[in-house]
């Protein structure tokens, strides 16, 4: 720590004491203050929206919360007729499909981003990036249809052979109906790849040329420059793109419900049908009668919010540990 004076917008600079105190109008007229207020309003609005969201989810789920307490999270029964509700199969399905989707999407997305940013000629890179950004704008119902008409028939065709060799592994065992955790994960992976590619590419392109030149000067190969310098430099941005992809996967509704089978059960096998939180809300909300049923569905929304927060926090912790590890080495 040196003798540097740190100033924040709220704190007057020491030299300011010499002048008379400015009125608010004067400060606003200079522009800086106005921009400060405007941007601060933007920032606060996000907190406000999030706060209102959580507040509403909390208030309108109270009957279910009081009735089931923490058991709601660990119970597997979902029985609207008898008013028994548990979220576990949906939480499980949401987490499993999202994580599996990321496992599939990260290598593909990152590979494509590195190719587009580092290796491909600029014209090819720009054309492909345009196409990828188009993919991100395709409505999810279209991905669902692709799942039903292309992916599931293809998976159904190859699965018997696949299961002959790998069926003994619990996660690949059991009867494959086409609709499954696995099919949902593959569709989700296809949906989130464009996010990873287009953001990661931008971040990779923004890495200063000096970094590359320094590495080259040390005699590194092109791949060493990319993998040892450019990618680590852009790591934070790449992680950001993965978070965005994760958020999309966790909340995706339409495409998932079309290919997951909508069965409220927990299965070790990825080949079995399942259910996700977003899918069950979309499926049952319109016809839900009775306060307890409605509140249980809204509580699922609250749970999804919590799941998203927890996974994001864990991912950030992971990133933090990776970064400190890097510094030490």
């Amino acid at each position: 720590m040196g003798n540097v004076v740190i100033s924040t917008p709220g704190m007057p600079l020491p030299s300011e004491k010499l002048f008379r105190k400015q009125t608010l109008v004067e400060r606003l007229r200079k522009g800086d203050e106005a921009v400060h207020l405007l941007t601060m309003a933007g920032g606060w609005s996000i907190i406000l929206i999030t706060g209102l969201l959580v507040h509403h989810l909390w208030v309108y789920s109270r009957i279910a919360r009081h009735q089931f307490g923490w058991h709601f999270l660990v119970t597997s029964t979902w029985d609207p007729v008898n008013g028994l509700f548990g979220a576990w199969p949906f939480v499980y399905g949401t987490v499993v499909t999202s994580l599996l989707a990321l496992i599939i999407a990260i290598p593909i997305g990152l590979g494509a981003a590195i190719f587009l940013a580092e290796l491909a000629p600029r014209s090819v890179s720009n054309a492909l990036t345009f196409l990828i950004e188009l993919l991100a704008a395709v409505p999810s119902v279209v991905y669902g249809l692709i799942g039903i008409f292309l992916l599931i028939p293809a998976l159904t065709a190859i699965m018997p052979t696949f299961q002959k060799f790998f069926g003994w592994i619990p996660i690949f065992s059991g009867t494959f109906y086409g609709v499954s955790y696995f099919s949902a994960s593959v569709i989700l992976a296809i949906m989130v790849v464009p996010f990873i590619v287009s953001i990661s590419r931008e971040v990779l392109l923004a890495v200063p040329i000096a970094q590359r030149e320094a590495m080259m000067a040390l005699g590194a190969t092109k791949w060493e420059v990319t993998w040892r310098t450019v990618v680590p430099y852009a790591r934070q941005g790449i992680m950001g793109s993965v978070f965005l992809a994760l958020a999309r996967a966790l909340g995706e509704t339409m495409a998932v419900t079309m290919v997951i089978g909508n069965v409220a059960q927990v299965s070790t096998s990825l080949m079995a049908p399942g259910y996700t939180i977003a899918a069950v809300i979309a499926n049952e909300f319109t016809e839900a009668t009775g306060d307890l049923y409605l509140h249980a569905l809204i509580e699922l929304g609250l749970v999804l919010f919590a799941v998203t927060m927890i996974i994001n926090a864990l991912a950030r912790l992971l990133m933090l540990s990776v970064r400190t590890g890097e510094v030490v080495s």
Partner: protein
Amino acid sequence: MIRRLCALAILAVSSVSAQQISLTGAGSTFAYPLYSDWASQYHKLHPNVEVNYQSIGSGGGIRQLIAGTVDFGATDGPMTNQELAEAQQKRGTAILHFPTALGADVPSYNIPGVTAELKFTPQALAGIYLGHITKWNDPEIQKANPGVKLPAANIIVVHRSDGSGTTYAWVDYLSKVSPEWKSKVGVGTSVKWPVGLGGKGNEGVSGLIRRLPNSIGYVELIYSIQNHILYGDVKNSSGNYVRASLATVTAAAAGANSFMPADFRVSITNAPGAQAYPISTYTWLLIPEKLNNPQKAAALKAFLRWGLTDGQKYTTPLAYAPLPSGVVQKELQQMKKLQY
């Protein structure tokens, strides 16, 4: 300036005299094609009345009606006593049920090599959906279809994943024919299914059936007629195997008319009658007994009367079964209860 003000005043007065009346309703998606057709036909006859119907689902329709944000509701399953009491308490008015048309569920299946229209006993359908009957060549199915060679394959059961009136009718029927279903699963727009995969909407269910060999599921009669889907006959309470059609569905309503309760909240699954199709159901309009706005009230009453009488001719082209005339008579009597 004064002249312009006068012109404005005249415009304002004239717009009051030819006042537009707008009725809003919400609910059943099943009945949406019918009500939107009614709305446009009625608007041609009465240009000053506009009926806006939003197909947000029966549950949503009931909620909106209780909250008082719509003038009328529409549902595929009758309101419960608790919901009626809640409406009485919040809106200060009773809610009356008026059947407007009929629908039905049909068992649709995909068995490689079988193109015949299969016959199903109630025990077979309940057994399949409870998970007791697991093979297509089970004696309960085979004995009803002596001429058909059924495979020894596992049955894949498909049901709706979204809450719907179609599911309500299907499980209501299973509850009536199977005590075990009634005690273990029960009746609702969504239930805890003992077995099976869920498809979203009729198209989701029929899509799964098409893709999965040896599967069975239930879809709306309307959907199967419009999409030429293969479906089976079901044995009714008289012991006849009946194929679902608009005529046999109306026959079920006529058969159930003898025990129609005063409030019309009736289930007509497994209804008596030689030609009655057993998995039939009404769809209802939900009309408040009192409305505060007299103009709206009069318009709503006229619209309802028109729908029950002249409007019935629009049911068949849309593949809904029309009401039997005996039921229409009872409903016109019931309309006298409306306090406007």
